[in-house]
């Protein structure tokens, strides 16, 4: 039946009314990031920063840089299969990790060994994955550090789920998920942020925008005004922070963690920083970026920025500098020594943890390997 054929009475009875009034579900204005990354060092706000915190951050930054250098050296000696360095990004790693309480959880990516170590993880255990003797060298429950995650952004939904579960249990636990700029293009980034916002989960997402995903610059990764702006689409606040300013990172992270803890929901933080080293020891950064660009960032070095502030305020002298350097050197020497010892591996472990309840199939295969090992032993 066409409209023309409708009985006149029915057409006359139809009274159009406007649809229910539309309004945005959340006011987007307060969610928007500031126009510029938040800074403390070099601004008036620095004067009120807690001296104890500044010194703690400084010691950790110096230690972190030394750790990166030592780990990179270990790759050259064949002691590590690969190392993705976070040199230049130490303020993000340390500032974020120190914003967490003991009971909170960290969900690091493969570049976030420093954050894990800053949370108390054994520096050697943190490198197990990269040494290649096992995929994770530590029990995640001990320091509440999830395994260093290799597939990009896939650990973000884990952080959301854990935070959600903690809230359901009534625990005031916050999860911090760390990711790089390239990872924000992954579908799991989107799904994790969406779930977090819908569930109002106590989780904080920290994106270290270090300029590159291996060789691909941010401009080829996104057309968003900033990565922090992506938050608005999910209904959570986005924050921009200078990722080389450890005090600013610590403060912004601390606020987001506190907000999550009191039931205020998730936050997306973009820390603007720069990856001073190549992607890993196996990468050649000269193929895709100019030295002049690297030099520009060298003049905005996270350690120097903090050192300048500490020196200006009379909180750090040569003696203090040397003490921090010496502590870092001791850590590096210890790391070197322990990493130079060959790990003791039991090939039978290959079958030990695939299932909680071993299958007959794997028992058969374990017996096969056992026989091979015994034959090797006998031949020796």
């Amino acid at each position, binding site marked *: 039946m066409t409209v023309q054929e409708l009985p006149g009475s029915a057409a006359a009875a139809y009274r159009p009314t406007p649809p229910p009034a539309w309004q945005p579900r959340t006011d987007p204005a307060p969610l928007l990031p500031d126009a510029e990354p938040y800074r403390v060092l070099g601004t008036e706000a620095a004067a009120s920063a807690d001296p104890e915190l500044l010194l703690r951050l400084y010691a950790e930054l110096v230690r972190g840089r030394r750790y990166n250098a030592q780990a990179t050296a270990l790759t050259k000696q064949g002691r590590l299969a690969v190392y993705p360095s976070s040199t230049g990004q130490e303020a993000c790693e340390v500032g974020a990790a120190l914003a967490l309480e003991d009971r909170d959880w960290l969900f690091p990516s493969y570049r976030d060994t420093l954050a894990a170590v800053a949370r108390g993880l054994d520096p050697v255990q943190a490198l197990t994955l990269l040494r290649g003797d096992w995929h*994770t060298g530590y029990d995640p429950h001990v320091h509440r550090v999830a395994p260093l995650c290799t597939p990009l952004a896939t650990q973000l939904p*884990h952080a959301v789920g854990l935070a959600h*579960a903690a809230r359901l249990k009534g625990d005031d636990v916050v999860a911090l998920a760390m990711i790089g700029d390239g990872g924000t293009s992954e579908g799991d980034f989107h799904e994790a942020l969406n779930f977090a916002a819908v569930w109002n989960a106590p989780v904080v997402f920290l994106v270290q925008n270090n300029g590159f995903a291996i060789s691909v610059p941010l401009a080829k990764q996104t057309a968003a005004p900033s990565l922090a702006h992506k938050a608005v689409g999910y209904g959570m606040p986005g924050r921009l922070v200078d990722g080389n300013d450890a005090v600013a990172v610590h403060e912004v992270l601390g606020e987001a963690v506190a907000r999550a803890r009191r039931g205020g929901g998730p936050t997306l933080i973009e820390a603007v920083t720069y990856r001073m080293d190549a992607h890993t020891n196996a990468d050649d950064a000269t193929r895709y970026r100019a030295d002049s660009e690297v030099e520009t960032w060298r003049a905005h070095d996270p350690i120097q920025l903090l050192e300048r502030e500490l020196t200006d305020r009379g909180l750090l002298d040569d003696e203090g500098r040397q003490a921090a350097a010496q502590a870092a050197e001791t850590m590096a020497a210890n790391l070197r020594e322990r990493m130079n010892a060959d790990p003791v591996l039991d090939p039978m472990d290959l079958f030990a943890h695939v*299932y909680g309840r071993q299958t007959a199939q794997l028992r058969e295969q374990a017996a096969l390997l056992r026989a091979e090992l015994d034959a090797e032993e006998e031949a020796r």
Partner: protein
Amino acid sequence: MTTAAVKPATMAQALQRAMRDAMAEDPTVHVMGEDVGTLGGVFRVTDGLAKEFGEDRCTDTPLAEAGILGTAVGMAMYGLRPVVEMQFDAFAYPAFEQLISHVARMRNRTRGGMAMPITVRVPYGGGIGGVEHHSDSSEAYYMATPGLHVVTPATVEDAYGLLRASIASDDPVVFLEPKRLYWSKAKWSPDAPAAVEPIGRAVVRRSGRSATLLTYGPSVPVCMEAAQAAEAEGWDLEVVDLRSLVPFDDETVCASVRRTGRAVVVHESTGFGGPGGEIAARVTERCFHHLEAPVLRVAGFDIPYPPPMLERHHLPGVDRVLDAVARLQWEAAS
């Protein structure tokens, strides 16, 4: 036992009851997925759970399978026991990375430090007149991933028992629900459910002496019917319902094949690279000297799942099973 206790129940009802009982017994069991709450699932398998246990225990999630399974991983890390529903077989594919890179590997990655007691329920298989993406048999993908258990019931009773066992398992289980059997009925008492066996055991559904049909899930009723029809041809067929593809019950399967000397594997999944190849190889490796004929496979064709008006030509039916049985070199047996 009262008369009321053995009135017919459907497989969907048995599955619902399994989740309900698990949730009542264990407060860490959480059901989550698309439409599982208010609606009770598109197949009504989670009917009433949100009402009884609240939306925090039976949660309507955003429509994002990787997000559903990825958040379930985090929940399991914090001590919960998630039961995840993927709405349809082919809609589970976005969750593949979480399943393969994390759910299956987390225990191994952490040397047993982090178990993943997650049950992933996936309605699978065809025969319901579904349009594209609603009828896949995706079990081979899951079987090829170490760290997962892969389980599928064929009866109302097993639907309850196997789902209870899967939820109780500290290892992750891909629980494949044959959707065309959702409304199959059996006399089954929800008040006196069968003992929950550990997963990994096949069962002989029908004893026979001539040949063994090795099958699972939606093809079990097909094989039972074929065995019935085969009597007229003088074949006394044994039907083994595998129930669990991982772990695989070599013991029950090989005991049967050694008795009968002949075997046909029957499943809906495509034949090339499908479960039947693995099963036939295992049987041949273990029972070679007992075999009177090569192990044959009756499987779906190696084509994308057909449109509903053509699916009957694709699905292994009674005739195709009997044709395979006829090819088991009987002439040599005289």
